[in-house]
């Protein structure tokens, strides 16, 4: 092979470099810049080193927001993944009702996030909300603005309502890719419903399930709009998740240094989890082949 001695070909890479620079690298580096320095305006900066990181990592506020965030993601996954599988299994495999079910499932996914928040905010209000007023009238004490448990239940139910469909659709796609012969063979081999699920359906779904877990983890870990609209992080700070906390810090209090440090930590956590998932997925791929 002849090597090109002409370096003008580098110009061809320039557009991509520019796009990536302006859309990702420069904004991210700005955040990095803020995270290591302090400023009092006038574009004057003072070197802080890892001070902001230490402050964030040691702060009680960050710890509790992080704890709430993990708890929320865990509850979401623990409900949405099994529920999604069950619904996908219950959906008809073919026939008249398939498009109907698919549209029904897709509907919640099409609603903008702040609209979902608004729907549930109103739905749960005890004065005019259908759910809130109904519960109030039958004597159930329910008030998501004052009771922590009620606020959490409302947010979890809202997220399940909004996002279980995604898991359902992914699982359904996985199930549809199983040839009929597998079910016929299972019947001939005398497999029970559970054995069919355990040895045919679940193995064929494992790839899509990993994607579903990854997507739902990332999305729920970054959740902002819906809880912000419904509870605003309250009562107190009881539903203040990481992103809500971050926005309060950066925009409410204008603490750019700690906010930048927290952004990077937040980003690294998500990156770490995505990497772990990716590693597991490619490992499973290798095992299968």
């Amino acid at each position: 092979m002849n090597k090109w001695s002409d370096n003008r070909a580098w110009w061809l890479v320039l557009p991509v470099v520019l796009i990536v620079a302006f859309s990702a690298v420069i904004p991210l580096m700005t955040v990095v810049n803020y995270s290591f320095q302090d400023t009092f305006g006038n574009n004057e900066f003072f070197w802080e080193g890892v001070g902001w990181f230490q402050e964030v990592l040691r702060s009680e506020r960050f710890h509790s927001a992080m704890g709430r965030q993990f708890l929320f993601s865990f509850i979401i996954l623990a409900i949405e993944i099994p529920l999604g599988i069950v619904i996908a299994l219950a959906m008809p495999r073919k026939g008249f009702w398939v498009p109907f079910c698919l549209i029904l499932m897709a509907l919640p996914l099409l609603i903008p996030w702040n609209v979902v928040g608004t729907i549930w905010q109103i739905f749960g209000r005890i004065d005019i909300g259908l759910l809130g007023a109904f519960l109030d009238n039958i004597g159930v004490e329910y008030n998501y603005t004052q009771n922590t448990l009620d606020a959490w239940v409302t947010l979890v139910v809202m997220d399940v309502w909004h996002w279980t469909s995604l898991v359902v659709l992914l699982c359904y796609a996985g199930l549809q890719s199983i040839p009929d012969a597998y079910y016929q063979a299972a019947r001939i081999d005398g497999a029970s419903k559970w054995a069919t699920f355990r040895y045919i359906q679940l193995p064929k779904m494992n790839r899509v399930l990993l994607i579903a877990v990854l997507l739902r983890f990332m999305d729920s870990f970054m959740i902002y709009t819906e809880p912000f609209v419904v509870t605003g992080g309250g009562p107190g700070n009881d539903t203040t998740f990481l992103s809500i906390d971050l926005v309060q810090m950066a925009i409410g209090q204008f603490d750019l240094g700690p906010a930048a440090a927290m952004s990077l930590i937040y980003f690294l956590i998500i990156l770490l989890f995505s990497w772990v998932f990716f590693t597991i997925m490619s490992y499973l791929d290798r095992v299968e082949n």
Partner: protein
Amino acid sequence: MARIELNHLAHSYMPTIQSPEEFALKELNHVWEDGGAYALLGPSGCGKTTLLNIISGLLIPTHGEIRFDGEDVTRKATEARNIAQVFQFPVIYDTMSVYDNLAFPLRNRGVAANDVDRRVREIAELLELSDTLKHKASGLTADAKQKISLGRGLVRADVSAILFDEPLTVIDPHLKWQLRSQLKHLHKRFNYTMVYVTHDQTEALTFADKVVVMYDGAVVQMGTPEELFERPKHTFVGYFIGSPGMNVVPCHIDGDKAMVAGHAFAMEQGFSKIPTGASLEVGIRPEFLSLSREGSGPEVSIQKVEDLGRFKVASVRLEEHEFKVMVGEDQEVPTDGARLIVDPTHVNLYANSHLVEEA
């Protein structure tokens, strides 16, 4: 093992039937003997898979009944019928080892652990899978996977019948031979009733004792490979079996001879009464035609000669009719003045595509 009876069996995929054309499987009556190897042969869409699915219980026929050893199983579910089936693409349980795959049908039926172990090892030995028992089934080659599918059927000692739905489609050609002879061997040794669906005539003819040829939803002939070759009951069987297929040309009858374009073809075995007004055709296999400069046959013109290695196939023209003639590897094809010599013992007469029986 069981004897399979098909009584007045017919099936249509339409909810209501307006015309006989809507039957994917037209009415048939057959008895398949216990321990027989049967091949269902026909082109795509001829109804052979429909018939197989009715036998395995995946489909309930519109009409008629099906009996295993006299017991009516028409409406019985697949799992209650005690049959095994090997599908076109190997079906294996990916997450299980080869051993667990083979043990699965037994464990589902609550067979004791040491019986399971004994059976699995026996079958693995038979199918030459012993070395891979501990391996994960998903990593194996297509033919090993297909052996596992087969093994899951054989492992149950009491299956009524083993059904094969084009099981060698995804297998490499050189392994096809091997698997096929293994199947034959198993059949001889254990006397399973086997039903084998295929569109490949070589597969059908080498595997089966009796070949059931299907065409357009109906069984056109059931017979030994020899019968199908020598006396095809329908012109379709003549075309479909043999390579190249049978020559079928229009004719009329003059006395005891068939007249093709003014030339008489003698027919040694004679024929019974011909239905009046039927369109007549004469069918002669390329194997029973030859070309020669001498003799009394009609003169033909050679169109082309294809050399297929072991033999040559000459396409010749007699007036407007074309014939394929099989010529031995070492024989010369006369380039001019060739005469078509017909073996009079192998000339079949067809009325409306059906064979006119011997007198």
